[in-house]
Each structure stands twice: as C-alpha cells, then as structure tokens.
C-alpha cells in the first residue's frame, strides 16, 4: 500500500511538471502585435512547415539529424525577441531579422544582404542603398524600401541610442533605393558598422512601437526576413525553425541546413562541456576549460585551429589602471607595470595555449593592417622584469623594507586587482599577474568580489567616483573598424560615473588623442586611417593608459558527430559563433555550409 502511495506521488510529480512545462513554454509574456493594415503578423509558425512540404513529422520532437544544438550566447532565459534590444534572444538578429550587409572581419569585406548594393556619392556625403527585390517577410508581405527607411529611422530612436541620430540628417525613399544624407562629414566608420548591425523590421508592424517604451515590445514570434522563425522558447532554451521561404535560397542559392536550431541557455560551463562531449551539443561558444586536451581526446571535437591557439581572437583582455590614482597616474609606473607582467604565463598556465598574447597595441589580429610596426618596435612594451625594476628606480620609486616599491612619498603601494568572483579563468589570471608583478617589486593584491561590486568600482556611481585600482576588461569585440577600439580607450569628454560609463574606465584624459579618434571616425580611406592610428599608437605606447595582455579566444568548439564541415582554417573561413553580431559577421554561412554527418 505504501509502495502504491509512492507510485502515485511519482505520477503526481511528473504530471505537475508536464502541466507546468506546457504552461512555461507559453508563460513568457507576449505583447500581441495588433495587426496593422495589410499585415497579418500573427502567423502560427508551427503551421507553416507542414504547409510547405517540410518533413511532416511531429513538430514537437526535433529529429536529431535535422537539429542543430548551440550554446554560449544565452545567459538568461530568453525573455525578449525585440531585435533592437541588446538582450534579445540568441539569433533574433541574424536568424530572424537581417541587416543590409554582412561584414567579414577575416577578409574585411562587406557583402550586400538585404541591400543588393550600397555606395557613397562622388563627394562621399550621401549614401545610397539599393534595396534587394523579391525579399518577403515571414508573413508573406514584401520587403520594401519603405521598410528600410523606417528601420534606419527607427534605429535613431534615442532609447536605442545608437549614435546614428547624431550624424544622420535625412533618410529618403526613391524607388527601390534609400538615400541617406548626413550632417557635416559622415561618421563613416560608425555608419559602416551600422550597415551590418541595423536589423530591418517591417514598418507596418513596428510603427506603433517607435517610442521611448520600445523595449516593452517583446515581439515574441515576430515577423522577419531571415532563414529562421520563432518556434518556441522556455526557461532553458530558444528554438528556431527553418523559414521555408527564405529569400536567399532563390536569390543567392543559399540554403540553411538545420531544420531546427535549439539554443541552450548556459547553466554552467561544465554542463555545456558535458553536453558537448556526449554529442548533445553541436556548437558551444562557452569558454571551456581543458578544451586543448579534449580536441586530442578522441571526442570528435574540433576547433577553428587544430593546434594552439585553437580559437580565433575575439577580443582583447586589458589590465585597466585607474589613472586618477597614485601611482597609476604616472605613465612611467604604468609602463613598468606593463613590463613586469608576462602574458605568456596566463596564456600557458591559465589557458593552456587556447589564447594568444596580445600585440603591444592590443589591436586584434583582424586589425593588423592598422598597426604601425615601427612605432611598436620603438615604443612597444615587452615583458622584462629587470627593465621594469630599473624603470621604477629611474622613475624614483624606492624599494621598501618589505621588498615592494613604495610611492615617492614613501607610503606603501598596494594595488587591488579586481575580477568578478566565479570568472574562473580570470581569477587564475589575476593570481599569475600578481605573482609576476611581485617579482618586479609591485605589490598587487588579487581580489574577486562579486560581479556587482566590480562593476560598481569600475563605473562608479552618480555619487561616487570609480574606486578600483586595477581591473581586467575585454569590452571591445571584433568588428569592422579599429575606431571602436580607440573610441573605447580615449573617449572624451569624461563620461559621468554610473551605468552609462562603459568606456575609458582608466579615465585617461588626452584631448589630442580624442581629436584623432573623432577624425578616424570620419575617415573612409584606409591609408588615411593608418596614418591616424599610427599617431594614436604613439600616444598609447608612450602613456600606456591601458595594458593589453592577451587576446581572448572566440570560444568555439564543435562536435562533428551529427554535423560536419565546420568553419576552420583548413575549410572555409567564417566566424563560428552565435553571439550578438556574429551572424552578420559571416556566421550565417556556417549554417549553409555544415553537412549532416555520415
């Protein structure tokens, strides 16, 4: 009888989950898009496939062979599908909503996408977009120049606050073209960036949401032009289903292979790794410890490079000093600190060679052509403990009784290095950095308070200035222009402390540099740009406002047991990542190139 009881309980338990799970898939709040004239946005996506000759199987079970499992972008439960919201679910921009161009950082080329072309006029003052014809929204209506114009204007919504509105004057439709005029010299670099980041949305549906509450529109199951459509979402996953009528199939002969894409919310790296090893996950964009061992471990796992550094470089990790504090306000001290640190230690001991030490400028490899090697050779800092000691001495920092250098006034120096608790690879890195610095007599105290505290110390608050001594930061991702990199370092005027401070954490103040950065933004010609970046590098390597350490990898590991022919340096060269912006940087080609295994 007791046994009976237990069985009943088990049943009840399971039943309650079934109920809840069924509920939860629809639990995510939706704002019903009220149908604008002519547009019927509420198409049941599950209905579409069966209607259009897709495998008429039970669409609530995704056949493994037709499903791509990804993970890495989504840290929280998918909660908004608004392509303008930086927190939109994985793939909203790229899989569901598309941009005018794609940009390939590896080849540094723009590929027309929703635009069939685009060009500056002779004077480089107006930009004309040729809108691609024959593109349809997933609700069947046609994609028009009006939609493009609307989307560009929408992108100027101050709540979204791209800087677009600061330099775009007018956006006008002329036939199948959209003509954009600018105030003064166009910010070419930013504009080019926007060309592959602005999602194109249907004007008919979005007109009503273009206000300061635009983020309130969650747009679940929205209408886009992309190769995938919303299938379902739950606390731990985002599911996309193939759009059978994707324009690129006809127009470019491209066809995405997976019928379903299931993006798994990161619960923790190790779970992801487990899934990856067991073939439950095809593409994992998490940082996974020990991947080097796994690649050679016969798990059928590969990375972009077969050997070190295994990954493409995704961003630069810097040591950010607080230049408003003694002794970090002294360029000589900062340079000595830079010389004291051996990034190779982090590369080898912490990351096991899955990252590479950074170039003294910190510019990512994709921006190599903007690095002035002579400047680097003359001014570039390299690891040299002895030199660090010497330079400190020369700069007037005496060694105290405890063997650590002291301030010029004799007061002890103890620099707190903060990384967020739980960021295991950085926590290890800070220990190595502290150890290196100690050898040169610089006392660094590695701490890892929780993330909120770090952010707080880094950004400061409306009431308090930033309090950090040293932090590690890697906010600048790869992109079309080195401008973002230098804008990040030299941004002026100083941004008020608080959430909005997301640049120039070191609070380095150099008007000349800032002027150059703005000029860079408004420069189109590469050689002209190189001239500017060379000057910027001179300033950077002289003052060392920020200390580049290593290139964080574009974490990407794939399991070949279900899908093969992944991007790599031996196959085809595209970004193997699912993060925001990467689909438009070529990752979409990954979906058209992978093949079912066997």
């Amino acid at each position, binding site marked *: 009888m007791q046994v009976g009881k237990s069985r009943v309980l088990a049943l009840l338990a399971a039943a309650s989950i079934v109920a809840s799970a069924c509920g939860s898939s629809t639990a995510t709040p939706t704002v019903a898009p009220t149908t604008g004239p002519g547009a019927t946005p509420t198409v049941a996506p599950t209905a579409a496939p069966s209607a259009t000759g897709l495998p008429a199987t039970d669409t609530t079970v995704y056949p493994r062979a037709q499903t791509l499992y990804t993970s890495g972008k989504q840290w929280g439960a998918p909660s908004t599908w608004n392509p303008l919201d930086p927190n939109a679910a994985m793939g909203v921009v790229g899989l569901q909503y598309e941009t005018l161009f794609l940009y390939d950082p590896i080849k540094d080329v723009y590929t027309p996408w929703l635009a069939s072309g685009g060009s500056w006029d002779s004077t480089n003052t107006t930009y004309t977009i040729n809108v691609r014809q024959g593109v349809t929204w997933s609700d069947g209506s046609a994609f028009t120049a009006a939609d493009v114009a609307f989307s560009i204007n929408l992108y100027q919504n101050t709540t979204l606050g791209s800087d677009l509105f600061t330099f775009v004057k007018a956006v006008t439709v002329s036939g199948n073209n959209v003509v954009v005029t600018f105030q003064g010299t166009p910010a070419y670099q930013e504009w080019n960036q926007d060309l592959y980041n602005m999602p194109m949305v249907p004007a008919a549906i979005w007109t009503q949401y273009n206000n300061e509450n635009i983020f309130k529109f969650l747009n679940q199951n929205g209408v886009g032009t992309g190769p995938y459509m919303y299938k379902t979402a739950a606390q731990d996953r985002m599911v996309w289903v193939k759009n059978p009528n994707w324009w690129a199939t006809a127009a470019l002969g491209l066809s995405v292979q997976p019928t379903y894409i299931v993006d798994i919310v990161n619960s923790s790296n190790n779970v992801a*790794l487990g899934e990856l090893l067991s073939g439950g996950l095809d593409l994992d964009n998490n940082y996974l*410890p*020990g991947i080097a061992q796994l690649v050679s471990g016969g798990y059928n796992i590969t990375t972009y490079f077969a050997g070190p550094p295994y990954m493409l470089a995704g961003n630069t990790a810097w040591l950010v000093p607080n230049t408003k504090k003694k002794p970090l306000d002294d360029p000589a001290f900062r340079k000595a600190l830079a010389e004291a640190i051996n990034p190779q230690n982090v590369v080898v*001991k912490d990351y*096991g060679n899955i990252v590479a030490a950074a170039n003294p400028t910190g510019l990512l490899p994709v921006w190599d052509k903007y690095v002035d090697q002579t400047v680097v050779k003359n001014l570039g800092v390299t690891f040299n403990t002895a030199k660090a000691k010497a330079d400190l001495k020369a700069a007037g920092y005496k060694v105290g009784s405890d063997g650590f250098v002291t301030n010029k006034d004799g007061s002890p120096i103890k620099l*707190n290095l903060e990384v967020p608790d739980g960021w295991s690879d950085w926590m290890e890195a800070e220990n190595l950095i502290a150890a290196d610095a100690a050898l040169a007599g610089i006392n660094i105290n590695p*701490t890892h*308070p*929780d993330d*909120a505290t770090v952010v707080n110390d880094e950004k400061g608050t409306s009431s308090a200035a930033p309090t950090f001594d040293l932090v590690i930061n890697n906010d600048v991702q790869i992109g079309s222009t080195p401008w973002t990199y230098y804008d990040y370092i030299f941004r002026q005027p100083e941004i008020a402390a608080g959430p909005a401070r997301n640049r120039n954490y070191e609070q380095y103040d150099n008007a000349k540099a800032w002027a150059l950065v703005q000029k860079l933004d408004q420069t189109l010609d590469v050689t002209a740009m190189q001239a500017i970046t060379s000057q910027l590098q001179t300033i950077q390597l002289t003052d060392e406002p920020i200390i580049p350490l290593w290139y964080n990898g574009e974490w990407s590991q794939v399991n070949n047991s279900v899908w093969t022919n992944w991007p790599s340096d031996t196959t085809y060269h595209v970004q193997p990542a699912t993060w925001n912006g990467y689909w438009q940087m070529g990752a979409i080609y990954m979906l058209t190139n992978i093949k079912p295994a066997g």
Partner: protein
Amino acid sequence: MTAATDATTKPSPVVDDAAKVPTAPARRARGEFLFFALRSKKFLISVAILLVLMCVAILGPIIDPTNPLAQAGLPMRHPTLDPGNWFGTTYFGEDVFAQFANGLRASFFVGLLGGGLGAAIGMIIGFVAGYRGGWIDEILNMVTNVFLVIPTLAVLLVITSYLQARGVMFEAIFIGFTSWPWAARAIRAQTFSLRSRDFIDLAKLSGRSGWKVIVFEIAPNMSSYLFLTYILLFGGAILIAASLDFIGLGPTGGMSLGLMMYNAVTWAALQLGIWWWFIPPGIGIIALVGALYVMNVGLDEIFSPKLREL
C-alpha cells in the same frame, strides 16, 4: 538501582532532599562511562576516525606545507603518477592533498564554532520557551520563526557583498547564528512534553528556581537528545558550509572542502574525469560528519543502560 531512568523518573519523596536525585546517578554513570566506552564498537571506531581526520587536518599542512593554491606539479595528474602529489593534482596542477588537508581544517573549525554557537543559542531559547511557556514562549517562538524563515542565503548575500573577502571564521559565525532555530524548536518541543511530567512538577513544588529545574531536571533528562542536537548542528554546520561554498559564497582566497567541489565542478572535473579532485572532499565530509553521528549513538548507548540491553 543504578538505572538512569529509575533515578530520573522516580519522584523524589523527601522534599529537602530532592537535589540528590538527579545528581546521584550522574556520579555513578561517570564511573561506568569509561568501562562501557572501551567496549562500545561504535564509539571506538568513530573516535578513531575523528582522530585520524584531526591528525590530517592539524598535521597535514605542517608535514606537507604545499600551498593548496599554488601549482605543485603537472596539471590533472592521476594520484598514482607522482609521489609528490599522492592525491593527484587539480586542473591547474595544484596538490589535491594540500587542498584536502587545509579544507578539512576549515571544516573542523566551521563545525566546532558554528555548531557550538548554534547549539548554545538553540538550547537557551528552546529551554526557556518550552519551560516558561505563555507569552515568553510566544515571543521566543516568534523570534525563532523569524530566523527560521529568513532566507539566510539572501542575508549572506547582503553581508558578503560588503566584505571584499570572506573568511572561514565569518562563515562559521554566520552559520552559528542562522542554524539554531530548528534546534530551538526541537528542544522546546521536548521541554514542552517534559514540563508536564510529575518529577518536574515536584521539583517546581519544591520551590526551586526555573533555572535549577531546567539545569538539574530537564536537561539531564534529555541530555542525550541535547547531545544529538549538538552533533547534528556540528555536522550540519559543516554541510551548510559546504553548500555555501558550492554556490560560490564560500571563503575567498582560502580553501575548504566545499570550495574544492565548487572548483572541481566549475573546472569540469566531472567531464574531464578528474574524479580524484571531487571524490576526496566528499569522502572527507562524510567521514567527518558520519563519525560524529556514529559517536553520538555510541555515547548514547554508553550513557543509557537500556540501550545497552538492546
């Protein structure tokens, strides 16, 4: 008539003589203690285990002063491979044994301090509430309830966020101050049912102060229960600490068994098959806490003849 039960339940017939009743058997029990202690398998085994663990915790770091957080060999080395790291090494080549020994130390500390603190608070509140009853009970009950349902995790979050670094000491004290409620409730309940027993009434009649009654009549009557409570709190503290460490709220910069598991998990020891990284801390905790529990029963049987007879 040496039976503890006999003495404690026997109504003391002569008023002015009541004080003798509970103390007399206690004296005899002390005499018997060693004799049975040396014959109780449970007791001896558990004591042995505890001593071994204590030696590891105390002497381990002295004999093998390897810094638990420093690279002490090749990474992910299997225990059998290098004599230097006979427990193997972690993902970073840290010496697992060094981590284990230091972690064990932390666990002992947390258990003794946290458990002790919790037991002390729990007994005081439990006795007073259960014995006095009435509005005092209501109030203490309220306090207990508040502490019982306060999401200690949240409180911990708030506190820790103010601390740049948290130590084991802090963890222990925190656990002590948050783990007593159930003990208080349990002791209260026991006291409550004892309260209505005749010998308590008699003691009360005899005009003895509430404290005397609690200390001499009630406490001895549930001494083994109290000990069980303390043991549970001791072990509980260790387990709670492990849980806190495991969700990343453990001591920063230090080492603990929970932290070992946390690191092992975040560094995918499971998937990389580095079992020697997460097995030892678990075994350590089980051995430590388990030994405490077993010792408790052993002592229980030693104190109470009735159990011996079983």
